[in-house]
Each structure stands twice: as C-alpha cells, then as structure tokens.
C-alpha cells in the first residue's frame, strides 16, 4: 500500500509543478487517440491519452470495437455448437478457450472424460499456451522497436501449430473438445513429433533470451516501467502472468485444478518480485519453458483407453448452473453456464482475462511517456478478441 500512496503523492506533486509551469508559459494539453487503427494495439483497441508534451496525464481504454456478442449467440446454439464460437475469443490459443466451457458442461451433466481424453486435453491445452506465448515473446520486442525476433517467433510457433493441426485438423480453430472427451484420437507418430517440436521451442526460448532478454536497451526500456504492486493488481482483477510478475504466487492449474491433469506432473509456478514490464516478459518466458516440460512429461504417460465417455447423441444438459475457470495463456478464463435443461444454454457469462488486464491501464498509464505506453500495453499482453468477446 505504501508504494502506491507514495506513487500517487509524487504524481500529484508533479502535476502541481506542471500546472505552475503551464500557467507561466501557457502550454496546452493534447489529446492523442491511439487506435482503434494503430500498429501497436494489434487489433482495435483505442486508448484516449491526454498528453502534456510527451507525458500522459490521463488515459482511458475504449473497448468494444470488436464485440461479437458470443455470450448472447451461445444462447441460441446447442452445447456442441458453442465451441465453434468460443474458439474465436483468444485466437492465438484457441483450444484453451474450449476447455473451461466443456468442463462446465461436463460438471452439469455429471460426466467425466476418460483419463486418456483428459491427458490429451491437457497436452493440447499446454500446446495452445505455447502457441500463444511464443508470439508474445517476439511481439514484445517489436513493441520496443526490434523487428527481427517476431520473425523467429512466427517461424518456431509453426512447429506447435503443425502439431495442433495434426491432432485436431485446425491450426487456429481446432473445435476439437467434446462434452465427455475429444473428437478423435491422436494420429500415429504424433508423440515423437511433438517431442521434437518442444525441443525447438526450448531452443527458441534460448534464442530470445540472448537476443531480447539480455539486451541492455531492452532492459533499459522495460525495467521499472509500468510497475504494478500486487495489491493494486489484485484489486483490478489481474490474472495470469501479469499478477505472477507482481509476486503473487497464484496459478489455477496448481491451486484449483479441475478436469485437467496438471497435478500429475512435476512443474513449477514462476513469479517475479518486480512487477514491471520486464518481469511480465520474464515470467512468460519461464512459463513457456515450463509448458514444454509439462507436455514432455505428459507425453510419457498418456494412458490407454477410450477417448470418449458415454454421452447421449443429442446432448441435453440438466438444469443447474456451474462456473469453471482455468489458467489460460492470457490469464484466468472462466465460464458461468446456466442451464434450464434444454439443448441450448440458458445463459453464458464469459470471464476473459484480457478484459480485466486492460482495465488497469488508466491507473498504470498515468504519468508515463508516450513510448512507455506501448511497452506497457505490450507487456500486459492482451488479445482483442479476448477483451471484447
């Protein structure tokens, strides 16, 4: 608490000093619209920034340019059809979007996927995490001005996408998860190829570590920029790597697992005490490595058995309500599903990570310089589909 108070006080003092200067030389503020069409927001987020010179006096995110009404659309679709929609929420790690919804539906129907399906589900869940975060690792360098790493990211992300495609048939929108299991079993030779892909991802992490993380300019641009104290982060509902970078040791995969088998393998939740942009980058880097380890261990022990539990062909979910959340690539994602015993869900509420992660920007962007806006937005790492749904 002391940190934030001190920050606020120093901010007020700086404001007062600026106001005196402004009275003397009569400078005018300027309102800068960053977005909705802007290269840094990779999508259609708009930040209205009031500037004094290059310093931000106030900033406000304007969301909703990409709202597609998935929560409402889900009400007129049957349960299996909903996965087609929610694939498109976080389009970089689509499979992870399907999992919590399917788990919620399974909880309502009181069925459980067979162990083999659970293990493969977890593997694909972690693969989509890697597919998502590798792009961040390259993209963060673009935000601070180095354009080469993102090409490496696209190159090596391809290995993971190939594996997802081989297993599910879709690179971006697998639509593979079913209530009670998975659509298909794994193709032959998939396990060995995935191991190879994991090796390539680890090499990619080494490469990024040398090229970006160890670079002095990158460190100068990100260290101490956009510091989020843990209490402020929690009060704004930050989740995932953003809150772990502030030193909060909280990971849904470990702390409240449901339906996925992360508790079967040996892995570690990484945190960083600093809470700045560099910490967020660093935590995500470690998480990618950790995810490759999880996948490797899971590949060793995929149990045999059926891929699908016994569920009726026409799925009617009994009346009731369920909330399931999982640790998605961008943070905690939850689905609150209310059923009245029909073919369609009565109501679906999606708790997406990016929406909360972006809502901290008015607090975080106060007093920073224009170049740091981009660094901070980049390090918060949001997907526009995940904000607007």
């Amino acid at each position, binding site marked *: 608490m002391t940190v934030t108070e001190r920050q606020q006080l120093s901010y007020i003092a700086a404001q007062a000093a600026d106001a005196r200067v402004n009275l003397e030389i009569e400078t005018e503020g*300027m309102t*800068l619209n*960053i977005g909705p069409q*802007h*290269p*840094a927001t990779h999508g259609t987020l708009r930040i209205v920034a009031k500037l004094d010179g*290059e310093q931000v006096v106030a900033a406000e995110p304007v969301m909703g340019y990409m709202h597609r009404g998935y929560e409402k659309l889900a009400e007129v679709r049957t349960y299996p059809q909903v996965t087609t929609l929610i694939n498109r929420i976080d389009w970089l790690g689509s499979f992870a979007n399907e999992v919590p919804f399917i788990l919620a539906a399974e909880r309502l129907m009181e069925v459980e996927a067979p162990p083999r399906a659970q293990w493969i589900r977890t593997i694909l869940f972690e693969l989509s995490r890697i597919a998502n975060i590798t792009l961040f690792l390259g993209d963060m*360098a*673009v*935000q*601070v*001005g*180095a*354009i*080469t790493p993102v*090409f*490496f990211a696209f*190159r090596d992300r391809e290995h993971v996408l190939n594996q997802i495609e081989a297993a599910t048939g879709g690179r971006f929108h697998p639509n593979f998860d079913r209530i009670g299991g998975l659509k298909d079993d794994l193709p032959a030779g998939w396990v060995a190829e995935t191991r190879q892909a994991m090796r390539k991802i680890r090499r990619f992490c080494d490469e990024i570590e040398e*090229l*970006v993380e160890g*670079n002095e*300019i*990158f460190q*100068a*641009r990100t260290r101490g920029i956009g510091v989020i104290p843990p209490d402020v982060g929690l009060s704004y509902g930050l989740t995932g790597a953003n809150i772990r970078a502030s030193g909060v040791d909280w990971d849904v995969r470990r702390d409240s697992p449901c339906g996925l088998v992360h508790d079967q393998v040996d892995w570690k939740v990484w945190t960083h005490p600093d809470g700045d942009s560099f910490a967020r980058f660093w935590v995500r880097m470690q998480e990618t490595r950790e995810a490759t380890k999880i996948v490797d261990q899971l590949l060793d022990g995929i149990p045999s058995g059926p891929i699908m539990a016994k569920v009726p062909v026409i799925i009617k979910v009994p009346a009731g309500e369920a909330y399931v959340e999982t640790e998605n690539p961008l943070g905690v994602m939850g689905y609150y599903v209310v059923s009245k015993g029909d073919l369609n869900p009565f109501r679906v509420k999606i708790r997406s990570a990016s929406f909360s992660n972006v809502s901290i920007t008015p607090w975080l962007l106060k007093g920073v*310089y*224009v*170049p*740091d*806006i*981009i660094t901070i937005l980049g390090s918060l790492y949001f997907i526009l589909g995940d904000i607007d749904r």
Partner: protein
Amino acid sequence: MIGVLSELSYWQVTSIRVGAGLVAVLLVAGTLVYAHLFKMVSFMQSRLGPMEAGPYGSLQLMAEIGKFLQKEDIVPRRADRFVFKAAPFVVLTSTFLLLVVLPGGPDAWFISNDLGIYLAMAVSSVSVIGILMAGWGSASKYSLLGGLRATGQLIAYELPLLLAVVGVVIQAETMNLQEIVLAQANGEIFGWGAIGNPFIITQFAGFIIFMIAMQAELTQTPFDMPVAESELVTGYMTEYSGLRFLLFFIGEFATAGVFSAIAAVLFLGGWYVPGLDPADNLFNVIGPLVLFGKVVVLTFLVFWVRFTFPRFREDQLQRLAWKFLVPLALANIVVTGVLKVVV
C-alpha cells in the same frame, strides 16, 4: 581528367556533374535498398525476401517505384499545403549537398573545398528543417510528435558527430576531404607506412562515435524514436503517400549511403587502396568503385544494428549523447591533440 574537363564548356561540365550526382545518389540508394533492406535482412529473419520481380527479385525496387508513382498524392485537408509539399525536397536537398564535397578519385570530385568536412556537417543539418516542416505541415499529432523528436535527436547527435570529426581533422591537418584521403594514403602509423594510415586505427574511438552518431542522424534503430512505427505509425512520414513518400524513402537510404561514404573517406581511406600510388590515374576509374565497396561494408553495419536492436527511449538516447558520447569525443580530441604535439 582535369584536362579533359577544362576543355569542355560550362554547361557540359555541369551536366556531367549533375549526372554523376544523380547516379551517385540513386544507384547507391537503390543498391542499398536491394542488398540490405530486401535481401540481407530477409536472410537474417529466416525468409527469402522478394523473389518474383526480375532474377532473384532484383527488379523489386523498380516495381516499388512504379507502385509509388501510381499512388495518389494525398494532402491532408488541414495541412499547411506548401510546407507539406516542400518538405521531402528539402530533405533530399540535404542529401545531394552532402555529396558535393565527396571525392571519388584524385581528379574525380565535384568541388574541392578547403572547408569540405565543415560544409558537409553544415548541410547535413538542412534535413532537420525538412523533417520539422514535414512534422508541422502534416497537421497530424503523430507527425508532430515525430518531427519534434527528430529535431531534438538530430541536434543532440550532431555534436558528437562533429567532435568525432575533429580528431581526424587534427591528424590530417586539413578539412579538405580530398586531402584527408591523401593524408591517409601517404601517412604512416608511428613510422610504419606499409598500408598508409587509415584513421580507423589511430582514431578508433572517433570512428565508433561517428558510427553511433551517424546511426542517430539517420534515425535508424536503435535511434528511430522519431519514426517509431509501433507507436507513432511512421512519425513525420505518416501522412505522406505516393511520390513524396518515395522521396523520403530514397532520401533515407541515399543519406545512409552518403554518410557512410563520408565515414569511409574519414576513417577508411576513401577511394584509396594500399599498395598503389595515390596519384595514379587508375584511381579515377576504380576510385568510385573502391569507395562504393567501403560504403557497402559500412552500411551493412548500419543495417545489421538496425534490424537487431530495440530502440532507445527519447530521454535515454539524449542521455547517451550528452553524458557519454560528447565527453568521450572531447577526451578523444584532447588525446589526439596531445599526441599530435608530442609525436
């Protein structure tokens, strides 16, 4: 060659010089764009780059120019029309003026001026005015921010650039670029004169400072805050389209070539290669090619850095200029001066 030129009338000499100037700017810029921007960088980023236009994509630049010429010349409604339209020409003027003092051989030069390098440093500042005009005239907030950043940065880095040159001037005892080349060709390093005295050896600190300041003058990464594409779209160039954008684009690469040529003249012996007599008429033919070769090497360094590093923030790059480069350059001048007197 001088003899030949003196027999021609004024208009003939002038057209030869204008033609040579255009070739020196456009050919160099075109080569740099193709070799470095299209191909070298593509290989660094594990992709192929342009492959379709011409053999191995070598005519891609022609295709790009054709594309830019066809595009509409858009002027924003609230723009200051005259300033907006004139700005790219001002920037390009600076590039051509820089070229004037460059020697390409013992007799192959545009003008031989005793204030050569001083003139070059002076006209290189003209581009700042063009950039400020572009930033102000566009009536866009991104352009304005970019123009202001560029102005602050270019002024800050002109100082280390100039101070780095001073060391060379002390050692060569002249500001005439032609004589700086000859001083390197005929010089010796503490009594050893087999390769002459390319000043990169005795003025290594000066060379490093010059290259860093040059990178900043060219607004290349890590000093590309003025055109930072991830935050200011493209800074002062945001509102430009068609031919005028092309002029900025050519200006950027031509200036990179000309600045590298000045660095080559100051530190790498210009058109001279060791082992030959610098007065040899041969150098009038191969001199420009030798210089061009050195330019390609130096621009390779520029673009290598450009596509590897992230960018400095505005305050960080100002700090680098004032707190590190300027003191280092001053120390370099002191050391050079003392050694000049003592040795």
